[in-house]
């Protein structure tokens, strides 16, 4: 399964939490919120919507760059270790952007990325750099050969393995950036292994050495002990002061091998990413592995068999820069008249229509690991929400969307996300870019239930599971994750307690150095989707770093927990929990609802039930009095306004049977783990 994984950062990440969005509750302090500079969600439009049409003036002749003059690399790091700043500096150093002209975090274009200081949209930038390779005896800089460098700013991390494998598939090396003061963190570990397993050349970069608490030697020692990286290979930099930056590109050129493609072979290129541009249609990011691509070529998709004509081709330098051609080993963009990003399957192999080629090893298909119902906050806005979701998924094909309906919330959608951050970003973009206000139901993970007749169902919506099934359930499985936790050793006790409360199983326990402990746990995915990271941070004063990658399903004792109001189940509040936790979760749900549902004209019973067994119960007594005294001097306007407000309040509520449920109640339920 290719999804989720996330790491952490320390307390200073608080700034990322300030934004407002429709799901304030569950994500506060979630690792997904804060972390990672490198996420790719297949979200969309980048910096390319206003291409320069000046290839001639640029005088870029790509034929001058055979594969041995090309280096493809990415930068990978734990969140806030300085990846985006380093990328900015490299773009400036090569003159790709002018210093002070580009906005900081140049490659992060979306509002959501800037607000959160994260990258959710992968980007690629082509840079040119003159370098005297292997110390050849050339004294005049003008005579030094120019190298074409592709910085592929994609997830250096395992959040979504198919996305990660995609970005790494186009690279031969990676800069592993580590904060000189914070040292190796959970995400650094995950990053390293990804790059390592992809056989990439790894260049360790110890960044932020200008900090007073920087301890590069300690970090070198950690890199040696954890990853067996030679301390003398590490570059010492400060992207802030510029110290050591001149060493970075030479190291990239000297140490990272050129792409291995064969220019004489038939064209094979890997579709890395796609997005929708209002003016040009679908724009595909591609890496040409073998052969050569020219404008006007007819190309075909190995996956769909569809043929297209190449209308425009070029490189990102850093905006769309037409070159008319891409040679093997080069990374660029193609406009081919595709109508929807759904046609552009990420990981697909594109080749010339007339030739038959062996498809490149593709990527694992995206697996949706977190599901949630998305409903219009105001039931009448369904069409508006439908439109917004259509527009957004046009640029983010990685969200699965299916219409569903709920008795409580009306018409809406069941959306599948690659992970929690993905879900969160999706919601935020719906609100920010399309003005859609939504109610989201409690995120759930896909469970597998097996019945006595050996039929199996994949449950993405708890409401879809019968509360009193006619067939006996013989087994259930739930998805798990492999979690990496790095903490100062004094917090080991409480963290182990937390993990075992969350039904975790310890797989590894070791010391990184004298003060810090590295642990690996297998945890049920459901146990971490809501507030695990929050909890972890709070018990470790913010010092824990955390990351996870998905692991296999495990058999588990699961039950469906229904919430009933006046005896009527509220489908949107149903949830699937471990049998041993059902009592506690049921109690919590009932208490939350009691707090957030106002007294109404009739008494309300709130119950939590497993099948027909009630496990928690509360009542809200009927409203006693709601009356306004007189209309003074006949001035009824104020009173009427009050009553109209009361009416509007009712309108915003969701009605189940005779009970009005305020929207906040749904938001609050997201917080119950």
């Amino acid at each position: 399964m290719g999804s989720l994984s996330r790491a952490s950062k320390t307390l200073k990440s608080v700034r990322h939490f300030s934004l407002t969005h429709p799901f304030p509750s569950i994500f506060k302090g979630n690792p997904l919120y804060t972390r990672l500079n490198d996420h790719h969600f297949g979200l969309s439009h980048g910096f390319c919507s206003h291409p320069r049409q000046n290839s001639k003036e640029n005088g870029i002749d790509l034929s001058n760059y055979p594969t041995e003059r090309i280096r493809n690399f990415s930068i990978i790091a734990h969140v806030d270790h300085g990846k985006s700043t380093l990328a900015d500096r490299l773009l400036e150093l090569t003159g790709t952007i002018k210093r002070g002209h580009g906005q900081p975090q140049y490659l992060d274009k979306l509002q959501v990325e800037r607000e959160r200081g994260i990258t959710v949209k992968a980007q690629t930038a082509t840079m040119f750099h003159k370098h005297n390779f292997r110390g050849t005896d050339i004294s005049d800089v003008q005579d030094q050969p120019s190298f074409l460098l592709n910085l592929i700013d994609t997830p250096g991390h395992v959040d979504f393995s198919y996305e990660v494998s995609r970005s790494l598939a186009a690279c031969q090396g990676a800069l592993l950036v580590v904060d000189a003061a914070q040292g190796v963190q959970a995400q650094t570990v995950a990053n390293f292994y990804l790059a390592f397993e992809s056989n990439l050349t790894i260049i360790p970069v110890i960044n932020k050495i200008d900090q007073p608490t920087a301890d590069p030697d300690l970090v070198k020692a950690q890199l040696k002990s954890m990853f067996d990286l030679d301390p003398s290979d590490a570059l010492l930099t400060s992207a802030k002061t510029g110290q050591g930056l001149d060493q970075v590109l030479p190291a990239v050129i000297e140490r990272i091998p050129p792409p291995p493609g064969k220019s004489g072979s038939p064209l094979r290129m890997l579709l890395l990413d796609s997005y929708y541009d209002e003016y040009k249609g679908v724009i595909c990011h591609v890496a040409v592995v073998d052969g050569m691509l020219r404008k006007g070529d007819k190309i075909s998709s190995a996956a769909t068999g569809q043929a297209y004509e190449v209308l425009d081709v070029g490189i990102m330098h850093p905006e769309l820069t037409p070159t008319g051609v891409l040679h093997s080993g080069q990374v660029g963009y193609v406009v081919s008249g595709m109508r929807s990003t759904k046609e552009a399957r990420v990981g697909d192999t594109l080749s010339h229509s007339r030739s038959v080629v062996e498809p490149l090893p593709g990527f694992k298909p995206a697996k949706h690991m977190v599901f949630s119902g998305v409903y219009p906050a105001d039931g009448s806005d369904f069409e508006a929400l439908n439109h917004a979701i259509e527009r957004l998924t046009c640029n983010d094909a990685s969200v699965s969307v299916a219409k569903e309906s709920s008795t409580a919330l009306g018409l809406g959608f069941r959306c599948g996300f690659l992970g929690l951050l993905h879900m969160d970003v999706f919601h935020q973009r719906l609100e920010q870019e399309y003005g859609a206000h939504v109610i989201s139901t409690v995120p759930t993970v896909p469970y597998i239930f097996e019945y006595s007749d050996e039929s199996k169902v994949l449950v993405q919506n708890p409401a879809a599971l019968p509360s009193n099934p006619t067939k006996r359930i013989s087994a259930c499985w739930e998805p798990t994750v492999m979690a990496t936790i790095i903490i100062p050793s004094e917090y080991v006790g409480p963290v182990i307690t937390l993990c075992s409360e969350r039904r975790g199983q310890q797989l590894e326990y070791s010391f990184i150095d004298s003060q810090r402990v590295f642990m690996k746990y297998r945890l049920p995915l459901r146990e971490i989707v809501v507030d695990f990271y929050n909890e972890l941070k709070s018990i470790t004063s913010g010092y824990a770093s955390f990351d996870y990658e998905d692991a296999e399903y495990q058999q588990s004792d699961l039950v469906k927990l229904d919430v009933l109001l006046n005896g009527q189940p509220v489908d949107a509040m149903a949830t699937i929990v471990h049998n041993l936790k059902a009592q506690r979760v049921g109690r919590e749900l009932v208490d939350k609802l009691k707090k957030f549902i106002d007294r109404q004209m009739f008494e309300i019973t709130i119950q939590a039930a497993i099948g027909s067994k009630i496990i928690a119960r509360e009542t809200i007594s009927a409203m006693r009095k709601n009356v306004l005294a007189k209309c003074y001097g006949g001035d009824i306007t104020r009173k009427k306004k009050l009553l109209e407000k009361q009416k509007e309040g009712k309108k915003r509520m969701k009605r189940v049977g005779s009970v009005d449920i305020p929207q906040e109640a749904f938001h609050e339920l997201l917080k119950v783990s």
Partner: protein
Amino acid sequence: MLKSTFTPVFSLFPAKPRTPKLFYYSNITNTFKHNPPSVRRNASSNTILTTSTTPLSQLTPTSAYIHLPFCRKRCHYCDFPIVALGSSSNQPDDDPRILNYVQLLCREINATKVESKTNPPLQTVFFGGGTPSLVPPKLVSSVLEVLRLKFGLSSNAEISMEMDPGTFDAKKMKELIGLGVNRVSLGVQAFQEELLKACGRAHGLEEVYEAIEIVGSCGVENWSMDLISSLPNQTSEMWEESLRLTVEAEPTHVSVYDLQVEQGTKFGILYTPGEFPLPSETQSAEFYRMASNTLSDASYNHYEISSYCKSGFECKHNLTYWRNKPFYGFGLGSASYVGGLRFSRPRKIKEYTGYVQNLENGVADCCGNDSVEPKDVAMDVVMLSLRTSRGLDLKSFKEAYGGSLVFSLFKVYKPYVESGHVVCLDEHRRVVPADELSTALLDVDRIEKSLAYIRLSDPDGFLLSNELIALAFGAIAP
């Protein structure tokens, strides 16, 4: 004539609220040639359509509310537009502030446009405040004189005045009676010294008894005892005592106001509704029930949410409000409802003075700027009539706003008829049982035949009137 012209417009409204309004424009403007021209001439076509409300509100008002804002001090619960005279003013007879204000008030009345000389004279005048009884009778007299000259004043008009204990003696009372004041609304509020003190009243218990005595001895036949329930630290025993003493004083009318804690008042700063020292919601509901029971037992009719009276002693002026009939309003912060438009005057003396000047110069009118949609009027009618025991008259409501609105109202109210909060009545005011309602609901025509009124029950429906009226609003304007 008016009614028949308007009916087509309204019967279309519920089904097609977005029907282009221009179509009706000519139709309606023609009608307006015969209409009291208090509707603004410069109104947009939209406004013209929408001001064409029920014929009732288009009539010339026969009621006038007069605001006399002066008080010795501000009570702790009060957020009305008042002018606190302070303790220095022991001689309100000569207070220039009162004199100036009354002159201004008379100017406002005089500057008000009256379209026809044949208008019916005023049937009710209500002096509210503030503490109108602080105003010297000779000034009250001048106000009444101006009203008489301007609008005419029916010889048997109901002329009410709010009076506070300690602000009048028998002499003043007699003078007022001589001027025509024939109904007194006595602001007693409580029969416990500590409660009077706690709510910042300018009088004590002794003045209360004195005032009751004066009202009785001067022969005021129609008077109201005004009480407030749910005061801070008020106990059931205190409330029981207040109700008992009220019944013993034998007023013809009792008003019981449940304390509203308003923002910006002293109580608003100190207290939260339902929390100590205010009675809990349950207790406060209990007070309401006690009042309803005690007063009903003493043969008072609970004819409106907060009003009780002996048979035939309803406050005619207030009935104007509940029946959505037009009324004039004069004075600081007062509200009027003329020509289908509601308007509130400025709440501050300075702004009010400017308003009167503009009115005299013809650059302002008292019609307000809000356009009124038929559904807004429908909400007014529902909100006001459901406050009364008479309830909503379905026949006239249907004629004005269409049968589908009545139907959706019943659909919303059905569970509350079953729970006893809402009562359906036939034309003989017999209760229609809930199960009969269910069958009636199957067929719109049967609603019409078997149901004539809906009202809120006493006390359960009245107690939750906000909730129930808000539900009705939802049915009218979803």
